[in-house]
């Protein structure tokens, strides 16, 4: 039993948690920015998939991984802009539009992938990102190999968390985002453009979702498959709620989920597998639903979430 225990909790395990958490952290921060501005983006699942596909295609055709990342980010921004066009400019219902964006983007991703790469028995793969150990820091025992010998995108995610907190809480733009998410009417009176701020927040969110997609196909799996996102977008929706719409807490929630996911993968691999791994995968969703019920008394969700803003209407 202790041998199994040791096999599970080793340096590789810590590194796996960080790797699993990275795309979730990007996606969760992206959804958080969108929701803090008052726009629920259920398009996230499809946006991640389309970005993952677009980035992979660009990288595999050009041979440049960073060009792939750029294309994924731009794709995410474009789809974010589309969602904002419907929900912010036209004020259409956010949840139905989000489902529409997910259906559209995932359909387009499948369609274009099949068109470009055809039907192959083995999905084409690329030579993905390689870990870049940071000098000195990577020599630290345990933490070094686990955290500081990772992909560049992982470092980017680690930096993105404090950066997101700084932008949201310490910059004028972040204040505008929080204002239009809490009280758009007051924001409007204070001279903040509700429409423009929401557009910017949803597009920034799309960019982060694009990074999440890029990580999946260019660092984690090095290939695009139809199940490459497989619900990670929905997980991000849950993590934003679980993380109470805060960058630090959301990132913490992503780490916690990654820990549970890595644990179930190890347990499956260690042949201990009498516990159905699905039970672990269910946990974040159940926890979030329970957390929503418990938190509801504190009303921490942005007040204007799901509410369109039309200046002339009172």
């Amino acid at each position, binding site marked *: 039993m202790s041998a199994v225990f040791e096999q599970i909790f080793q340096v590789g395990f810590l590194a796996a948690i960080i790797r699993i958490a990275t795309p979730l952290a990007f996606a969760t921060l992206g959804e958080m920015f969108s929701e803090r501005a008052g726009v629920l983006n259920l398009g996230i699942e499809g946006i991640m998939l389309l970005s993952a596909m677009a980035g992979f295609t660009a990288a595999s055709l050009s041979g440049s991984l960073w060009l792939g990342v750029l294309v994924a980010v731009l794709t995410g921004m474009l789809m974010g802009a589309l969602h904002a066009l419907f929900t912010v400019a036209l004020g259409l219902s956010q949840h139905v539009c989000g489902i529409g964006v997910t*259906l559209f983007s995932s359909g387009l991703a499948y369609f274009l992938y099949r068109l470009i790469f055809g039907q192959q028995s083995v999905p084409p793969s690329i030579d993905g990102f390689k870990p870049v150990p940071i000098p000195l820091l990577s020599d630290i025992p345990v933490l070094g190999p686990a955290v500081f010998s990772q992909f560049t995108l992982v470092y980017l995610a680690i930096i993105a968390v404090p950066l997101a907190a700084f932008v949201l809480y310490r910059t004028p733009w972040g204040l505008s985002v929080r204002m239009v998410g809490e009280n758009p009417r007051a924001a409007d009176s204070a001279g903040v453009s509700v429409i423009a701020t929401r557009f910017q927040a949803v597009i920034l969110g799309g960019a982060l979702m694009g990074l999440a997609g890029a990580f999946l196909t260019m660092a984690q799996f090095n290939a695009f498959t139809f199940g490459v996102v497989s619900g990670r977008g929905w997980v991000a929706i849950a993590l934003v709620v679980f993380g109470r719409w805060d960058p630090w807490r959301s990132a913490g929630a992503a780490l916690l989920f990654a820990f549970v996911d890595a644990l179930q993968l190890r347990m499956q691999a260690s042949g201990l597998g009498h516990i159905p791994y699905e039970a672990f995968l269910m946990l974040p969703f159940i926890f979030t639903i329970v957390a929503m019920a418990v938190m509801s008394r504190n009303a921490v969700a942005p007040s204007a979430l799901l509410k369109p803003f039309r200046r002339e209407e009172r």
Partner: protein
Amino acid sequence: MFRLEARSSTPAWFNLALPLLAIAIALLLCSGLIAVAGAGVVEAYGVMLSASLGDSYAITETLVRAAPMIFTGLAVAIAFRAKFWNIGAEGQLLAGAVASCAVGAIPMPGYLAMLLMALVGAAAGALVALVPATLRVKFKVDDVVSSLLLNSVIYYALMALIEGPWKDTFSGYPISPPIEDSANFPVLIEGTRLHLGVIVALIAAPLCWFLIARTTLGFKIRVTGENPEAARYGGINVQRVLLSTALLSGALAGLAGVGEVGGVHFQVMSDISPGYGYSGIVVAMLARLNPLGVVPAAIFLAAVMTGAEAMSRATGVPAFLSDVIQGTALLAMLVALLFTAYRIRRVGAS
């Protein structure tokens, strides 16, 4: 400059014109993708049409595929009427499928098995839908997110079943044991897959229409959705109405799963629903939340799905075009719905 101006009433012909407009826009936009794929647009849509509605066998195949979407479309339409935002039809469908499969595997007279499958499947779907509704009524939890997240919970529960206790020990495949042969829904036309469940779906639509348009509960559902304050003032127990709506909506989505188990697959596997729950949202929106409109809307989506496969074989255009058409149609319909509440007015030009 143009601006949107509120409209006090909506002409009746909009109910038909808007979905047709949305579908036309979706097909037009997607014809660009067909051209990109190097096929003739007219040819591709032609193959799609003839393969889905061109002969009687094709029509039965389209109807078989439409049946689950009629049920999920009705589930969403009724829920949205009360502004209970049920995004969870997918999970409720899966729950119905699992429950009816468990019942169908018990040896008993065929007609009894079918009846019990329908009842238990509907009950399972209703129970799942009751969760987000109860959370909203008791704890003010947002039903959009909770119903959406439940889909994942139910999906993993299904996976745990078919990779665990239900796993096929002989082949090792993650599929449930089949239901009893006697529990298979009877086929109505020899040589086709047109099963009893399809007829039940077609009958369910007018029944739901009657319920919404002509009964007291239907009236309460509509008032609750349109103006909960007025409903409360008028003595309607809004919370109770929301819970009843959820039960009804979940039961309908559960029946979608029952039909797939009893009439099409006769067992449960991981891909038993290719997103029929989400398609239900598209169907309900195209139908403008009218149960009678759900039938043609579901048949349209089913025809696109059936036709896309034939189109792919004939022209090489990937069959995933049907997914794009579905998403585009939903977004186009949402934009078209703006015309029900607003009209475009030129201002300030002169």
